């Protein structure tokens, strides 16, 4: 078990041992970087084709199924197409900023992967303030998107960039607020320690993951909703709303730069999915104690794939929101619910020390639900104008 679990760690150690003594520190870094880029680069290629196939099935059609077996080589065809396309820069564009924007989007995202614990002893950089650094890195994409929209000298690009900024700033708030209970309960900002805090099993079989608490369940929902908006995915893909503003801030991009934007968006989604797995789904912990013989990185990959499937499923099911609906949803629904969720998490934490009868898991669960559920229903009914009662028409039949 241990050998399989630590296979990548040992492989890296062995490869570093081959390097001359003076270069070992550098070799260790290069190996980690190469590994992360290879894994998540191929993950990107695989996700694009699997997403298209899954969306196709949801819409009663085959997805791409022509290139290679079952269409699995479609990413190669896409890559060739992207690379040989002409790279058009508008005449009046700010050429330097236009060139830098896709790089600014794509490069910092790679940093985020260094913070995630992919398995036991498999964190590249274990920072004490890992969560904070992650969100700091994630907010770089806002700059990149606005650079792209501004430098293109195109009204659609600018509108798309403004929409993106409004969306990302609005949804950054519930995103971070939904993480606060996790940090509160774990007592640490380090992702490694947050995973360790979710170790162990209640009653011998129920994992102590955050998602299996009332605040964690709501927290994961809030986090995934906000993450969808942060990564500009449907139903929050207004910045690129094709039917309204062509392609938003991507309008003036073509060829490889466009591909880089695409890559950056998917990498951002991967990073935030990995963070969701770490924060709420117990990271690399096995779901049942007798399944712990499977390697830790396998469990991380499985949870990661499951959450990606949820993202694809949601994309296949929901239509795009309107601009005002989107902002109302964030400020009038997600943010208050996230604040109430923090309260519920605090009560969950405090009720552990109340009298032993009350501290039984069921009663604490009910207390959490009693706080969150009425808030959810009330916010959903009254605050969001999406859900006003049906209008009555005086003169209609």
């Amino acid at each position: 078990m241990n050998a399989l679990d630590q296979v990548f760690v040992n492989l890296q150690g062995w490869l570093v041992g081959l390097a001359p003594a003076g270069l070992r520190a550098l070799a260790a870094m290069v190996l980690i970087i190469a590994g992360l880029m290879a894994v998540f680069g191929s993950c990107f290629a695989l996700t694009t084709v699997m997403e298209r196939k899954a969306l196709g099935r949801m819409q009663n059609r085959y997805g791409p199924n022509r290139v290679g077996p079952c269409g699995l080589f479609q990413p190669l065809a896409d890559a060739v197409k992207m690379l040989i396309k002409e790279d058009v820069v508008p005449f009046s564009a700010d050429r330097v900023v236009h060139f830098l924007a896709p790089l600014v989007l794509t490069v910092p995202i790679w940093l985020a992967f260094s913070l995630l614990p992919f398995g036991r002893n498999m964190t590249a950089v274990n920072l004490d303030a890992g969560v904070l650094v992650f969100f700091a890195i994630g907010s770089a994409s806002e700059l990149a998107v606005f650079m792209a929209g501004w430098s293109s000298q195109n009204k659609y690009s600018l509108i798309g960039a403004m929409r993106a900024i409004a969306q990302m700033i609005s949804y950054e708030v519930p995103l971070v607020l939904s993480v606060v209970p996790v940090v509160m309960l774990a007592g640490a900002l380090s992702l490694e320690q947050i995973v360790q805090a979710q170790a162990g099993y209640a009653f011998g079989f129920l994992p102590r993951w955050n998602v299996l608490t009332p605040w964690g369940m709501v927290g994961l929902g809030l986090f995934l909703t906000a993450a969808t908006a942060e990564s500009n995915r449907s139903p929050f893909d207004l910045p690129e709303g094709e039917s309204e503003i062509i392609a938003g801030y991507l309008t003036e991009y073509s060829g490889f730069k466009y591909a880089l934007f695409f890559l950056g968006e998917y990498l951002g989604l991967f990073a935030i999915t990995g963070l969701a797995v770490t924060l709420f789904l117990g990271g690399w912990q096995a779901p049942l104690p007798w399944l712990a013989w499977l390697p830790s990185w396998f469990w991380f990959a499985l949870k990661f794939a499951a959450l990606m499937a949820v993202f694809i499923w949601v994309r296949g099911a929901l239509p795009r929101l309107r601009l005002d609906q989107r902002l109302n949803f964030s400020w009038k629904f997600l943010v208050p619910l996230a604040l109430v969720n923090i309260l519920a998490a605090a009560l969950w934490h405090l009720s552990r020390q109340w009298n032993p009868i009350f501290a039984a898991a069921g009663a604490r669960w009910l207390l959490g639900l009693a706080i969150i559920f009425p808030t959810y229903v009330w916010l959903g009914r009254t605050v969001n104008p999406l859900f006003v009662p049906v209008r009555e028409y005086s003169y209609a039949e």
Partner: protein
Amino acid sequence: MLGVGIIRGLIETGRNFAGSYVRSERLTTVQYPEARLAPLENARTIPFLVYDGEDPVQGLRCTACTICEQECPARCIHIVKDTAKKPDYVGKMQLQPAVFDIDISVCMGCGICVEVCPFDSIQMDLVFNLTATDRFAALLLHKERLAKSNAYFNQIHPKKSSGIDAHRAEEKSKAEAKARAAAAATTAKPPPTSAATCGAGK
């Protein structure tokens, strides 16, 4: 309650996804070049000219009356009448086209030429892969390429062509009966040369 509609939508797409692997009505795509849908009776693309029998020149139904040329809203038909005549299916001598061109880059497939043709000569085809590397000459179809047999017409529009065939057979038998009556009335006379050409017509 908020979220119920979302869950309903997720269930529907989930059913589509899972059902596409087991039920054909959840995966309706026909994989085109390998598999094709059967053509519909009333489908149409561009016109073609019908000929009877084996010879596309002798059997051509077109009499170069130019009604289609005049009625075509896109003006994509060009006809030049031939000076020589040939007998039609009932044996009557008719004109024939020396040139019959359809510019398919202009044709919009409206089917008005088919509606106005008194000889059931021009009909709508089902061909659709008509790409060419030349924009002009390759898209101007001449008589030779437009002429297609009645058997082909029977194959692509079976209902319409069988009606036309029945009508034409009736006309032909009427004309033959008339010719026989005329022949019986003038039985004393030797058979005229025109009657001989009549028989050779069809």
